């Protein structure tokens, strides 16, 4: 009869498959709708997100030790020598942005954090008038 005909022509399988497809579609649709608010938030804040992603790529590309003494390529003495040479080409006292620009042009490693290290170690000192001067320190070997 009718039910036998259905079974004979794989009707039950087709019906089951149809049910699965419909319910899968409904599940995907309801999940999408439940996440729609996040998508809208992302769209609203897309500029900040793009900036964060770019910063992430730049940071991962430039990763490396930031402390002078841990750099494998340069020793502290070599870094001090390099920056002392750069300072020698500038006026005395010199403008710190000028030293940074010069270091960048020469392709020196992480010039900003290096200059910060030199300031903290006392090699570069402020004159309290907005400019800086070089003060050679005695390197102590541990």
């Amino acid at each position, binding site marked *: 009869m009718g039910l036998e005909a259905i079974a004979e022509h794989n009707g039950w399988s087709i019906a089951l498959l149809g049910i699965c497809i419909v319910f899968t579609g409904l599940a995907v649709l309801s999940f999408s709708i439940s996440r729609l608010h996040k998508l809208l938030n992302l769209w609203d804040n897309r500029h900040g997100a793009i900036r964060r992603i770019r*910063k992430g790529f*730049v*940071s991962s590309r*430039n990763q490396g030790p*930031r402390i002078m003494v841990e750099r494998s390529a340069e020793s502290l003495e070599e870094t001090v020598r390099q920056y002392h040479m750069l300072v020698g080409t500038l006026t005395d006292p010199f*403008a*710190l*942005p*000028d030293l*940074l620009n010069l270091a960048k042009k020469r392709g020196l490693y*992480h010039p*900003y*954090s290096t*200059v*910060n290290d030199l*300031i*903290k170690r006392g090699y570069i000192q*402020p004159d*309290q*008038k*907005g*400019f*800086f001067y070089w003060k050679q320190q005695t390197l102590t070997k541990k």
Partner: protein
Amino acid sequence: MPVDINLLKTIPIFEDICKINLHKLASIIYPVKVSEEEVLTRRGNTATSFYIVTSGNFMVFFKGGRSFTLHSRGDVIGWSSFLTPFRYKGSSVALTDGEVLCIPAQKLLRLIQENSELASKLIQKINHVIQNRLPLANGQPVKDEAAPHTA
């Protein structure tokens, strides 16, 4: 994401502020991570934000090459947000990776206008910073006892 009020209590500029006002401040302040060489302010741009250093090292520089560096927690950047014409007098850049607290200038000014107690305490602290840094920004000699990086 608003900042934790317990963090604000450790910042010198907020040390005299009562708990209620700290909560109001915490609702408008948010932390921002910065990377080495990242620029926070550019000279001449509209002063839209005021920054307080929580970690890291920064350099603020002005026309003519004058500059100073900030290394301490609680140091401020962007005091031009409080002075007309509300344009940054100097540019600031991160010397190392760090974190700052960002305060949108308009929201802070609105808060100050609504709260005279908060206004008087904050402006008193900011005035001290402005007095120390304004000579540098204007290219004038700085008195020896004035430390530009005093927060």
